[in-house]
């Protein structure tokens, strides 16, 4: 260990990730490769978000018996760039009642944490280009929980500084939602960490290649994580923060032009991010199918892993988009109930079951899973019995036995 502090704090010795982005410029440790990686990542995010928006509009269109965008480019594929151009040329309004300092700052504070979280994702290898795993992040799991949590501040700032009551209500909802869903998400992730005995996302992916995908070993954990992230990024049916039929867009009501565009960008980048994280943590990362290594097909994943990773990610994105156009929106108290009464206990059950698996082996774990499922079935059945769907009675009455307007006292 050297006595020279400056040489100590180079990129190799410092746990190699966060300083690379935040501290490295200050200590002169940012290499050209890092810079290129960041630019490539930013470009990827921007382009993928455009594709994603186009995808969502197409999905929405076809689900709703429409066609979606059609005119700009083949099948409307250039609609998103056109929209970006439109947003750039649009007037950027600041309401009179808005806070002059906080209002313009908020969009960036929403987007930057989302983008920073992309740094931890292990994208997987691709032939000729090598491995797209950016860095082996030792604390990846903590990082991916901690940094997006900052996003909430941006949303709250946006809602508060707009000087609009709808946006204020929206940001109050954001806060309630973020706080409730952070907890089940983190506890669901504990199971993943226990399975891989590491917080490093690359290690987690590699451990899944050895012991099977987490989606099969931790189905409850996957469910909890997926639903909690859907809620964190305020996607339907958990989109109470922007609920356009109630509070007309929540924190974004007063934003226009590219500032609004950045919110939109952050929202869709978050969908991409959380799909990617779910892929890495639960769906075996860049592995082609579970157990492919045992069948001697591991080389396919090693060569074209990036494509498989992207494929799984896009499937998850599509599922999230699909849900948006099927489900009605939950009410805020139902959302809280769902987090505290369903997701949190489920996350704890997952945690305990994972502990059983790690300590006592597979057989008690399987029994535990069975018991849990039986319990869940019983609970669901009683719940359904308690609230059996009401039906409307059909009155096959003769005209004489029906009340007349005089009989019911309606004004004539």
């Amino acid at each position, binding site marked *: 260990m050297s006595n020279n502090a400056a040489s100590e704090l180079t990129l190799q010795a410092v746990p190699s990730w966060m300083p690379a982005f935040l501290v490295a410029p200050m*200590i002169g440790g940012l290499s050209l490769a890092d810079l290129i990686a960041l630019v490539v990542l930013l470009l990827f995010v921007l382009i993928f978000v455009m594709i994603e928006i186009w995808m969502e509009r197409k999905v929405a269109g076809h689900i709703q018996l429409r066609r979606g965008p059609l005119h700009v480019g083949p099948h409307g594929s250039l609609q998103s760039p056109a929209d970006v151009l439109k947003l750039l040329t649009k007037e950027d309004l600041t309401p009179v009642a808005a806070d002059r300092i906080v209002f313009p700052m908020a969009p960036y504070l929403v987007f930057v944490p989302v983008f920073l979280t992309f740094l931890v994702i292990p994208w997987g290898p691709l032939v000729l280009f090598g491995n797209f795993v950016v860095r082996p992040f030792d604390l990846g799991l903590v990082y991916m929980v901690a940094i997006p949590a900052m996003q909430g501040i941006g949303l709250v700032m946006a809602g*508060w500084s707009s000087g609009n009551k709808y946006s204020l209500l929206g940001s109050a909802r954001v806060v309630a939602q973020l706080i409730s869903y952070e907890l089940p998400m983190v506890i669901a992730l504990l199971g993943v960490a226990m399975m891989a005995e590491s917080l490093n996302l690359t290690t987690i992916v590699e451990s899944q290649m050895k012991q099977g995908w987490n989606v099969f070993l931790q189905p409850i954990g996957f469910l909890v994580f997926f639903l909690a992230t859907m809620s964190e990024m305020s996607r339907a049916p958990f989109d109470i923060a922007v609920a356009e039929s109630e509070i007309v867009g929540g924190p974004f009501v007063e934003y226009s032009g590219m500032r609004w565009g950045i919110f939109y960008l952050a929202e869709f980048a978050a969908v991409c991010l959380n799909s990617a994280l779910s892929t890495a943590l639960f769906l075996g990362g860049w592995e082609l199918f579970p157990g492919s290594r045992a069948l001697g097909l591991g080389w396919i994943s090693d060569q074209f892993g990036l494509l498989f990773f992207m494929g799984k990610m896009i499937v998850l994105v599509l599922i999230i988009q699909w849900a948006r156009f099927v489900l009605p929106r939950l009410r805020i108290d139902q959302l809280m109930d769902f987090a505290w009464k369903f997701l949190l206990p489920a996350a704890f059950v997952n945690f305990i079951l994972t502990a059983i698996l790690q300590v006592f082996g597979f057989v008690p774990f399987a029994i535990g899973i069975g018991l849990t499922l039986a319990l869940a079935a019983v609970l669901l059945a009683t719940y359904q019995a308690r609230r059996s769907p009401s039906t409307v009675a059909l009155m096959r009455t003769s005209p004489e036995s029906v009340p007349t307007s005089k009989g019911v006292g309606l004004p004539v």
Partner: protein
Amino acid sequence: MGLSALAFYVVAGVTLVSALGVVVARSVVYAALLLILSLVMTGLIYLLLLADFLALIQILVYGGTVSILLLFALMLTPPETRPQLNHRGWALGAVSSGALFVLLLVASLADTWPAAGAVRHIGLVDLGRALFSTWAVPFEVASVVLLVALLGALTIARSTSPSSKIAPRASA
């Protein structure tokens, strides 16, 4: 003085200025936002000390969650009626924080610190071992304290306030 020291001074300077801003700011929301800034900067100082886990937890807990709660409470006062902070008690505040500062200064000067280069990055495994063996009792005590605080908050929140008198018509 290397670049790391420079980085430290920049971060520490921002921390101090924003902390001072918390006290000086007239708007509560600005004060809260500056508090968040200073908390996040504290996280960066941890990072410079190679305590990366602590830094992330600082950002998660203080930057992400506690501060949101703080803002939440402030936001419920609508912008036009949000309280402007008065600084009537500034003398008392200055005296007490000055005393605290002196105390900390004395304590930190009295202690022996490792040499600048001898800061060692402590891995997560070591941290876990320390928390669950050497420091197990304080760790558990801290969790009990948090639980008590949680129960207290619940009690306050559930106490009869005028708001709970409106019976919800929706039984769903």
